[in-house]
């Protein structure tokens, strides 16, 4: 209870004061409702009395009407929060989450699946807002009214109170069992669903081979098992929660009959007035439905608590720390000094005592097998995470003392996987410098060989990338991302071999774009094809997280047994490879 209240207050964020006030209003409304039901006691005592004292009956009716009106007025105010703040709480939560995601270490971000974060900012944020704006007040109502009325009934006749208490006491453990069972059921069903989903994707992607081998169709062996398994899991989960739920609901209803029976016996013994019994039966009848609803509601509360907790967890993530003592970098020399770095949860460090100096306005290529640590080097330069030992400096300044925004202002990064936003081509280029003029954007686009093909598009720079997504080739997308980097005009450029996965058709134009991007800057490039970096000022061969060789292409080739020379020979052979022609007939 305390935990969920704390989570709700945290999720309410800037609207926490309004939220608190609403909770108080809810309690007041619940009390008014309970008091209104309590009014039935004297009222029915009058109405079941022969002859009826109309004066007093009208008096109690008037009081009842006043309480109903009071509750209504309070509910309207309560609704004011539900209607007036749900979207504001959603907005505030999403914006706070967005800020947080920008501020936390990138490593933290990478550790979480993109899908998970998406659902935190998407569905969980709205669920949290719903919990705050709607479920909280519903919960207050579900608790206050029965508690107050139970007390009233007990005060009127403790034996009837006992009957109710016994029923509720027996139902509560059942409700808890419903909770546990539906939780377990949820997880089991989730797992079965995920397994089935994976198998369905497999089935779709594997159609050619499955059809060829007679494994496709309604009885596909790849699907049948997982689908029936899914059915059994769902059915079992449903039953395991439904049985205790039904038992709890039955108990509440039986309590009503028991109340009538015990009450009747008491009236016959003249230990209870018949009028009072009527009042008790009427109020108790009002609870059969809400109480069984409470059992159903536990599932909802459970889900919102999970959503609240997930939102809170992301909001609580610590931001990338900035240590004091930062100055402006002098020049843009990059220096990695004795850096040891391992990813979270990895036993062996990815980089070990790694040293690298990239002089200002020079080009350094990182080469080596996959998994050797090349990408990690560029990540540390953009402060993806901080090294466990050693320092990374830009212009002599330790990155840890630089404001992350300042650091990123000096960097332009071109990734191997191009990410374009579903917006116009202009906006995709301009995001690097929102105040750039159209002329500047066009100049960057020309330099990146984007201008010509954009001019051929129906709406030119105003064409939305999403609408023509598949119409843009890999090379064209890559060039747009390079135009973005050119427009940014940052002194340091990090490249993850941007031509690796392109076909020869687009290679030349992308190559030109890259040349214009790197000209005159401090550049670190990850290269898979050695031929693309023979002209680098420095080639660094990385293996097992260490620098195993460094030098210019010529120097490295001179060591014929060296790692570089062997890689070079292998790649040259692969380049000369040809598809075997048909056997000569």
């Amino acid at each position, binding site marked *: 209870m305390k935990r969920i209240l704390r989570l709700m207050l945290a999720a309410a964020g800037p609207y926490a004061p309004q939220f608190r006030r609403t909770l108080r209003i809810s309690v007041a409304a619940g009390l008014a409702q309970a008091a209104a039901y309590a009014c039935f006691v004297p*009222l029915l005592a009058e109405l*079941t009395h022969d002859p009826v004292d*109309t004066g007093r009956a009208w008096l109690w009716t008037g009081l*009842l*009407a006043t309480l*109903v009106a009071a509750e*209504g007025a309070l509910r*309207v105010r309560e*609704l004011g929060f539900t209607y007036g703040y749900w*979207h504001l709480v*959603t907005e505030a939560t*999403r914006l706070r989450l*967005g800020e947080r995601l920008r501020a936390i270490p990138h490593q933290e971000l990478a550790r979480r699946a*993109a899908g998970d974060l998406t659902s935190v900012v*998407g569905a969980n944020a709205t669920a949290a807002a719903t919990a705050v704006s709607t479920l909280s007040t519903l919960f207050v109502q579900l608790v206050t009214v029965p508690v107050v009325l139970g007390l009233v009934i007990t005060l009127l006749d403790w034996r009837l109170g006992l009957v109710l208490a016994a029923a509720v006491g027996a139902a509560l453990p059942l409700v808890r069992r419903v909770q546990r069972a539906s939780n377990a059921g949820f997880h089991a069903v989730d797992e079965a669903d995920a397994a*089935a989903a*994976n198998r*369905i994707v*497999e089935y779709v*992607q*594997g159609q*050619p081979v499955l059809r*060829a*081998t*007679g494994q496709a169709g*309604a009885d596909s062996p790849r699907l049948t098992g997982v689908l029936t398994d899914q*059915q059994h899991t769902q*059915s079992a989960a449903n039953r395991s929660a439904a049985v205790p739920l*039904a038992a709890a*609901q039955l108990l509440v209803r*039986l309590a009503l*009959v028991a109340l009538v029976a015990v*009450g*009747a016996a008491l009236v*016959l013994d003249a230990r209870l007035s*018949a009028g009072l019994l009527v009042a008790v*039966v009427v109020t108790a009848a009002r609870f059969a439905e809400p109480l069984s609803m409470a059992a159903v509601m536990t599932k909802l509360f459970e889900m919102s608590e999970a959503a609240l907790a997930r939102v809170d967890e992301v909001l609580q993530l610590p931001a990338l720390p900035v240590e004091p003592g930062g100055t402006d970098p002098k020049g843009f020399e990059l220096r990695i000094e004795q850096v040891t770095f391992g990813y979270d949860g990895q036993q062996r460090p990815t980089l070990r005592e790694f040293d690298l100096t990239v002089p200002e306005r020079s080009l350094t290529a990182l080469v080596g097998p996959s998994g050797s640590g090349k990408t990690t080097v560029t990540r540390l330069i*953009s402060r993806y995470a901080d090294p466990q030992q050693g320092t990374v400096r830009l212009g002599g300044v330790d990155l840890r003392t630089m404001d992350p*925004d300042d650091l990123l202002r000096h960097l332009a990064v071109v990734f191997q996987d191009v*990410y374009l*936003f579903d917006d116009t081509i202009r906006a995709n280029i301009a*995001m690097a410098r929102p105040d750039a003029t159209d002329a500047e954007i066009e100049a960057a686009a020309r330099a990146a060989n984007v201008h010509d093909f954009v001019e051929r598009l129906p709406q030119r720079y105003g064409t939305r990338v999403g609408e023509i997504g598949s119409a843009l*080739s890999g090379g064209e997308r890559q060039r747009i*991302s390079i135009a973005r980097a050119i427009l940014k005009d940052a002194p340091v450029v990090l490249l993850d071999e941007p031509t*690796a996965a392109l*076909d020869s*058709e687009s290679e*030349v134009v992308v190559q030109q774009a890259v*040349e214009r991007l790197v000209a005159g800057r401090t550049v670190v490039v990850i290269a*898979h094809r050695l031929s693309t*970096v023979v*002209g*680098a000022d420095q080639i660094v061969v990385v293996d097992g997280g260490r620098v195993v060789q460094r030098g210019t292409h010529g120097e490295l080739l001179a060591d014929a047994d060296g790692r570089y020379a062997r890689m070079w020979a292998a*790649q040259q052979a692969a*380049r000369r490879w*040809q*598809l*075997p*022609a048909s*056997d000569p007939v």
Partner: protein
Amino acid sequence: MAKPEPGGLKALSALVATEPAVRTRLRLAALLGVLAGCAAVAGFVCAAYATGSLFTDDPSFPVMQTTGALAALLISFGARWLAEHVAHEASYDLEVALRRHLADALARMPLGEVQRLSSGRIKKIVQDDVKALHAAVADALPFVGSGITQPIAALLALGVVQWRLLLAVLVVVPVAMVCLALLTRDHAAQRARYNAANERVNAAVVEFVQGMPVVRTFDDGRASVGRFTSSVREFTAAVAAWIATSRASGVVNQLFVVPLPTLLVLVAASVPMRAAGWISTTDLLLALMIGAMPVEAVSPLMHLANLLNDAKAGAVRITELLHTPPLPEPEHPREPADSSVTLTDVTFRYPGERTEPALDGIDLHIPAGAVCALVGPSGSGKSTVARLIPRFFDVTAGSVRIGGVDVRDIRGDVLLRHVALVFQEPFLVAGTVEENVRLARPDATDAEVRAAAKAAAAHDFIVDELPDGYRTEVGERGSRLSGGQRQRITIARAILSDAPVVVLDEATAFADPESEAAIQEAVAGLTRGRTVLVIAHRLGTITDADHIAVLDAGRIVEQGRHAELLAANGRYARLWARHDRAADWGLARAGTTEGRAATTETEAAR
């Protein structure tokens, strides 16, 4: 909160109708629901009479009435429980049946159609849309029984027992009806705006999270956070607009669609009626117990409308997928005589597109055992040619023949056994390496599996690098292997299938530069002795091909051998010159102008 679209509901009931056994059980569930509702009301009537009997002159313990109440209660409860159980189980059966029908439809429709729908969308329909039916099917029917029957039975019972109090309740019923109408009124414009804003904000969230590396390096908080922020704000505005129109009905709902106002009206009406001696204590008691039932049924009915709403869009999508026309199977199937491939005057237009045909008058003959390369700019039709051979789609005009037989006259499974495809993402199933290779020929021996892996340059890494060799679990879709390893396992599978025709896309085959040499070896193993059609990107690899066809805008503009085409000095010769220059490209030393010089030259060449 809109009323369910009739089209959606029709689709939903049509889906249920495909399974008569399920439909019968659902009808039973509805009947049980009706019984439950009637019995519940009867129970309250008995309870009211039990209490009312105490006001007679010589009261005795109301044995009959309490027993009646207990019996009615147990019947009501049992019927409701049974109704839910029957409906849930029937619904689960329906779901499995629908998924199997969908699997069948997928296995019969053109492969190209499957590819176009994409595995993500199909997964959403087969899993999520089918699942969304459950709430509507399993919860709705028992509820129709209890939620609609119970309030009607309550009104009837009250009318029989004391018509004057029924009149008092009927004063409230119109209010409830108006509320229901208000609440379920479709604010179509606001709803559409809300849905659009919701979609945009979800897309922006996905973008913001997935594009975070770009967001972080390319925006200082003004542009792309701006994108995210503005879509978040737009959503807020859409919600605000919707609330502005629905707020009044929400308030009315909160104020009147609760029991207390009805009870107040009943009490107020009872005061003069009791004074005049028109109604008995029992009448009053019964009215107070069941009089609020019609009002209380309003919100569950609203909830039901929402459930149906959620299900109906899915029902439409499921129906569409089920009704996708299957690829026709031949009545008199024939077997290909050899492994030659012939395209005769092939014209092809993608279904549903009215623009230029993707292929226009293609004539191409690949003799058995020959290697044919397709080259040309992206969008020229290379992949389309490749897809027509395994009959991903049927040609619009002309014919595709394998071994002299039109592919439309070859049974689907036979055709796919004849053609090995290496042009999609490497496809692996969750299971062991061995299972993945064997998928192509379930009866292959261990020795054959190993031989295929060796030919695909996969045996060594399987034995040396994987923890359990051929028994290593590859993870969902092969996630525990590298791209190059996945590729070689799919090639081993193709080799094991021993299909005489191979269709290969060089770009996807060599997507992993790290293991290029090994994959080259695997491809050589696959193509040896087979008829090969390759979509070539690096011209250097196909200079020895028996035949090269240059495509542009859906037509073959040149064809011949490498030397002949170079001599012709046409389109191919220009592509070759360009390829040569690109292959020799290197990043120039920073600050020099060498690169620029080369650039200008290339531009001139274009």
